[in-house]
């Protein structure tokens, strides 16, 4: 029973990380109908900026959020204004390739600046854990889970309770109708891309608490983010949270009770199943 509880809790904690790194991808797809292949680049940048701030100035990763989130917003909005916006009426594959190009550029710049060595950081609480009866919980993972839930609440509040959120939802539902009713669609697009990128970079910051980073870091987690977004519903933030947790738990239980080697297979089985189910739904 102790083992089951340990694995279950670990799955929930990992799942909230998956959810946090997928929020931005879901938001951008929801509003712009763009699959942001540069998402992995923003995740990786988040880890590197955090590592650099910690290594150079000794800044705690959680404090770094004050830098990485606004930086992510600015970079994301700039990418949208200078690149994505120009291709707004092109076929989706054009934007897909463009953002893939952005990712490759960022990756290569990171290789030039930081090299290919694994970089990781150590804080006073990096290896701390909390014993709750027979179950041991990692403090950094609890912190990241708390931020994931906080991110979900904040995002839900913005989307449901603010004018900006209303505008985002309006553009997501019908760009033309939103424009006719006076919503500045161009600005909403930039805002959505900025928020999505800010979420990705801040996810990178939080992930730096337990993952090491190389310029390939984003590739490692981009596919996982896709799985979560597809499973949770492409535009549904609440669904993404539930899907992230569900995936984390499924992976950990599979790894423990069946075989550790099947851990990643779960993600892709889920992805395929979700895509097939959606197809059936659409046709039904």
């Amino acid at each position, binding site marked *: 029973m102790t*083992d089951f509880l*340990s*694995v279950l809790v*670990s*799955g929930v904690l*990992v799942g909230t990380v*998956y959810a946090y790194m997928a929020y931005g991808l879901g938001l951008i797809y929801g509003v712009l109908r763009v699959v942001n292949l540069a998402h992995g680049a923003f995740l990786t940048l988040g880890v590197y900026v955090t590592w650099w701030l910690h290594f150079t100035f000794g800044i705690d990763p959680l404090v770094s959020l004050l830098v990485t989130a606004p930086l992510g917003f600015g970079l994301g909005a700039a990418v949208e204004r200078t690149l994505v916006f120009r291709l707004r009426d092109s076929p989706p594959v054009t934007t897909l390739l463009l953002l893939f190009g952005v990712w490759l550029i960022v990756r290569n710049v990171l*290789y*030039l600046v930081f*090299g*290919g*060595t*694994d*970089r*990781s*950081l*150590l804080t006073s609480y*990096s*290896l701390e*854990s909390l014993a709750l009866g027979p179950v*041991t919980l*990692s403090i950094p993972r609890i912190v990241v889970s708390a931020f994931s839930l906080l991110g979900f609440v904040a995002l839900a509040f913005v989307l449901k309770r603010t004018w900006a959120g209303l505008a985002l939802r309006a553009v997501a539902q019908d760009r033309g109708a939103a424009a006719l009713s006076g919503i500045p669609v161009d600005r909403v697009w930039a805002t959505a891309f900025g928020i999505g990128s800010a979420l990705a970079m801040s996810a990178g910051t939080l992930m730096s608490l*337990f*993952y*090491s980073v*190389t*310029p*390939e870091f984003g590739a*490692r*987690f981009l596919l*996982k983010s896709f799985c979560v977004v597809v499973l949770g519903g492409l535009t549904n933030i609440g669904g993404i949270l539930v899907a992230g947790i569900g995936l*984390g738990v499924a*992976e*950990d*239980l599979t*790894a*423990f009770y069946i*075989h*550790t*080697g099947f*851990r*990643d297979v779960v993600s892709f089985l889920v992805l395929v199943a979700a895509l097939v189910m959606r197809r059936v739904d659409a046709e039904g």
Partner: protein
Amino acid sequence: MVLRFNSPRFALLAFSALFAAIGGTVACGGEEGGLRIGAALPLSGKHANVGGFFRNGYELAVAEANAAGGIEIEGQRQSIELVLYDDKSDASISPSLLERLIAVDGVAALLSGYSTPLVQAQVIVPMRRGVPFMNAGGASQAIFREGNEWVFGALSPVESLASTTLEWLMWEQDHDRLPAPLRVAMVWQNTDHGREYRTGVHTVIERHPDRFTIVLDESFEHLSSDHTSLIVKVRSVESDVFLSDAHEPDFLLQHRAYVEQGLNHVAVSYGARGPERSVREGLGEAVAHLVSAQWWTRDLPYERSRQFVELYEGEHGGPVTEYYPAVAYEAARGLIAAIARAGSTEPAAVRDALMALDLEDSLLPGGRLHFPADSRYQIRNRCVIVQNLPDGGTRIVFPPEAADGPAYLGPGR
């Protein structure tokens, strides 16, 4: 002058432009016109850091040989020129750079790049072209194929990491510091490296079934997003020794989970991982007492090893904490020694000299550089077992003739 598309001059220019585009810069050491040896190294991209260590090691060996007057080839003393290309850590580029080294630069022999996948891609070229190739960058036995006679390995097989670790544990049992049988939990990365580590463990245990009992034998995927469930599984089997073969990102995540879950074993080893500076940066004091098997360490009490440390640290600053430059240096030194003994740059003569080479002043553990035919010309030396100390240093704990103190053994279950 008109340059036609079908002219040889255009073809030469296009060929040069293509290689300039894919191969990056060329670095040379020694005087031009001498004997040439070459390598395609990962000087940029994901293995750039290790590639730099390899370049330093190769350059040091060449500089040393040149300082001693070069080598005698067919009655004439010649200096050695090292020709290096950057393969950008890309296995699809690396073989074409070796082709260029042979066809355009006219190298007499090749030195390897780094990482098993890159070296696996490289070895096809020397085997097809019949050029001696000295490998210091890939330990996997998959590199040394059936019928191989051109590829020589200065890095002992991955199996040696496992077998030396178990030999050390048996030595501790023989000295009544550990009980027998020991319950071993083993996890391994699902790659050639991990599979060979597992084979090494099984080979020793099959020979000594009274010494060890395997209670967990499980693979995990490279770059896993979490290792907690695996570590909980390790906890559930109640073992004395925890062995894992993992590359750095998985090692960092796995040992984090190990510490978080509060596990205790008498000995914990992650293959070759442990003493690296980057590991200390990521895990701090949590890596104290980890035991690792190394292909070389700076504390080895051999004269050649001490000379290398002095030379290397004098040239590049120190301390040299990684095995890469030492093995690269030794591989290049062995290759140069073989060419000198052959007294010729003729490939078959150099190959035969490498087959017969037996340097007894090697800096590698065991002190011998020799390529046995029965291991397809891959060196078969034992590794050296090193334990991390709480103060950030390391200590050799095995083999006994090189050990500088007893190992710290954990409290266990």
